[in-house]
């Protein structure tokens, strides 16, 4: 039986497995105290630490060594210690630093949400609203790129890429042939294939799902509709690919399946990666066994016209502070 440690995040104590990161400990509590993450992806080994949006203040290192950590730390890569105390939304320093990160991320990411095909599903859009500034102080020319078709199903538009490396990790870890990666360095860095090769392998479509912004998009769906006009439905099929279990979300407009994606959890991460056949080639209702409407968070723009009964967040253990926090969270989700 593995050892448990206690960590307190914004005054809420939770008991987690030893070796859990601060971010994942916060995710076990849920609500506003979960730091945002643009590059971390729990399903991808080695991800995280790069975007710096999840930085938090460790005001007490542990019971054994209560000294605070001198700098803000990336919560997605820092593991908890027993007795650790972490400040996230209760630290003005963290909020200021995070606003700074947002401003910096938006330097080379255009706020062209009305145009971008990721509108409504963009993590950076949400991050900008929740943690950013009203305007940017950057006044120089942005870098621009031509759109590149990497294969017949995926389009890359580097203008919107925030270099989170998630797609590179997917290609490294999920597919059997990586033909794209990071070229150049500094703010000249870009995602690219080797001399615009096609990304062709059974799982390549997953790079689209992990992209937090609109840099990698599905050409079979691109600009066919806005996501908030579609109706997501959980479905499955007996997929004969050994690594794919065929569990997906179908995105309907009327009777047509416009898009197929992997299912995502409450943190926007793919639950299980799916193969390209399920994603790109099975667009008929007859291909699928329909399960139920997909749960969409009430705070998401996609939730328009999707009505569900609201439930309080999961309570891990009897803890008044935690329950109070959960009730506050619940109140925020109540529709008036």
């Amino acid at each position, binding site marked *: 039986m593995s050892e448990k440690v206690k960590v307190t995040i914004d005054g809420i104590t939770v008991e987690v497995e030893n070796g859990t990161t601060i971010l994942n400990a916060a995710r076990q509590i849920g609500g506003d105290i979960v730091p945002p993450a643009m590059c971390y992806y729990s399903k991808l080994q080695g991800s995280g630490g*790069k*975007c710096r949006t999840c930085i938090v203040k460790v005001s007490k290192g542990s019971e054994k060594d209560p000294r605070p950590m001198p*700098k803000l730390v990336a919560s997605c890569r820092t593991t908890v210690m027993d007795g650790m105390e972490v400040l996230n939304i209760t630290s003005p320093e963290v909020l200021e630093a995070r606003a700074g990160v947002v401003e910096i991320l938006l330097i080379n990411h255009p706020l062209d949400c009305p145009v971008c095909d990721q509108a409504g599903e963009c993590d950076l859009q949400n991050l900008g609203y929740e943690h950013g500034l009203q305007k940017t102080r950057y006044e120089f020319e942005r870098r621009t790129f031509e759109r590149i078709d990497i294969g017949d199903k995926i389009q890359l538009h580097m203008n919107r890429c925030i270099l989170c490396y998630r797609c590179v990790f997917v290609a490294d870890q999920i597919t059997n042939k990586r033909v794209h990666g990071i070229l150049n*360095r500094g703010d*000249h860095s870009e995602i690219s294939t080797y001399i615009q090769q096609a990304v062709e392998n059974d799982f390549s479509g997953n790079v689209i799902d992990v992209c937090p912004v609109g840099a990698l998009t599905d050409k079979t769906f691109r600009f066919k509709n806005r996501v908030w006009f579609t109706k997501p439905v959980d479905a499955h099929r007996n997929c004969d690919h050994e690594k794919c279990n065929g569990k997906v979300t179908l995105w309907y407009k009327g009777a047509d399946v416009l898009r197929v994606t992997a299912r995502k959890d409450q943190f926007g991460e793919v639950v299980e990666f799916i193969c390209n056949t399920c994603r790109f080639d099975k667009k008929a209702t007859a291909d699928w066994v329909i399960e139920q409407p997909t749960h969409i968070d009430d705070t998401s723009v996609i939730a328009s016209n999707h009505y569900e009964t609201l439930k309080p967040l999961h309570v891990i253990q009897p803890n008044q502070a935690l329950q109070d926090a959960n009730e506050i969270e619940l109140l925020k989700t109540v529709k008036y």
Partner: protein
Amino acid sequence: MGRKLLLEHINVPGINTLEVYRQKGGYRAVEKALKTLTPEEIVEEVKKSGLRGRGGAGFPTGMKWSFLAKPEGVARYLVCNADESEPGTFKDRYLMTYIPHALIEGMIVASFALGAKVSYIYVRGEMMPQIRILERAIAEAKAAGFLGKNILGTGYDLELYVQPGGGAYICGEETALLESLEGKRGNPRIKPPFPAIAGLYGCPTVVNNVESIAAVVPIINDGGDEYAKIGIGRSTGTKLISASGNLVKPGVYEIELGLPVEEFIYSDEYCGGIANGKRLKATVAGGSSVPVLPANLTLKYANGEPRLMSYESLSEGGFATGTMMGSGGFIAFDEDQCMVRNTWNFARFYHHESCGQCSPCREGTGWMEKVLHKIEHGHGKMEDVDLLWDIQRKIEGNTICPLGDAAAWPVASAIRHFRDEFEWHIKEPIKSQQQNYGIANYAVPIEKAPVTEEK
């Protein structure tokens, strides 16, 4: 005359060859270490010496060695960081060029102390002459039985390799160096784990600077206690300083730590004063990444006491009135130098060298450079100074590796100490293109006459 430990025989003809190096007492430390000392005793001597890392961070070397994990059946590595590429720092290149065997001897002793059977010297790719010099010296040492199997009949085996680096500044950061050494893109790793636990190929690894490793030789020859007698306080021993800028005699000097800064700049033994009879305006004491200091705070503390060339003295007063020893890249600026232009120049370097892995450094360094370019070229706005201050604050401490801090500190210190010069550039865009701000407008102008040393 200051005591010399590393450069004592620098002027001896042929000191770069094994034969002459041995005639001058070379490889005594290897014989002593391997034949009479245990690895633990060597680590203890280095601890006693008080030697601090000469690459910039100044962490106690012996303590760093003692952190090395020693799991059974797992290889351990020593890696020498010879990727020196900070603007203003060129001491390691000098040492490797003229006394390569000092580094190789130190590598053998340190590898033995750490239990490494294979060690690497990671040299910046552009330093091809130094790579050839080291390879030749390694071949000489191997032929003489100081490397390879069963060194000096002691049963200890060591293979030493020189690895050319990728030619990127970031590869001098120890974890990026390890990535590069493994043949990958030179991106810094996120710590923990630290290299002492999981370094090269996932094995426990110590990464030390060239000068730190070379300093192990006199420590073993004379004992850690003797070494600790040199210097001042916790800044023990000697330090190589690469002096550049507007000095009468720029070059590489070996100083005893604790030497007054004023003496280092103005005495004939060292830099010989400011060139062309000009006055000193500012200095960068430890390579371009450390805070720049105006002349008055370079020579004296805020309370008027003389400032010394030591880790503690240079950092006295924090960043408000102090700086850092860093890698010992001492740059002097005379009264004709433009601090805005210099700051822009440093910012250009860090923008160019950012690896691009984490957002504050990738985007923030470029932003700072563009704002500085604007101010320097007469297109600045008054709020740009505060904007610059704000950008550097967003970078400092928020990045994966210290390159973000290295980019932020020169900008922060330039604004802190020379804000009026930045504002003058903005208020007088045309005049600032035609003439320098100088130091005439400073509240405390500094004028130092050269110090004549008593012989």
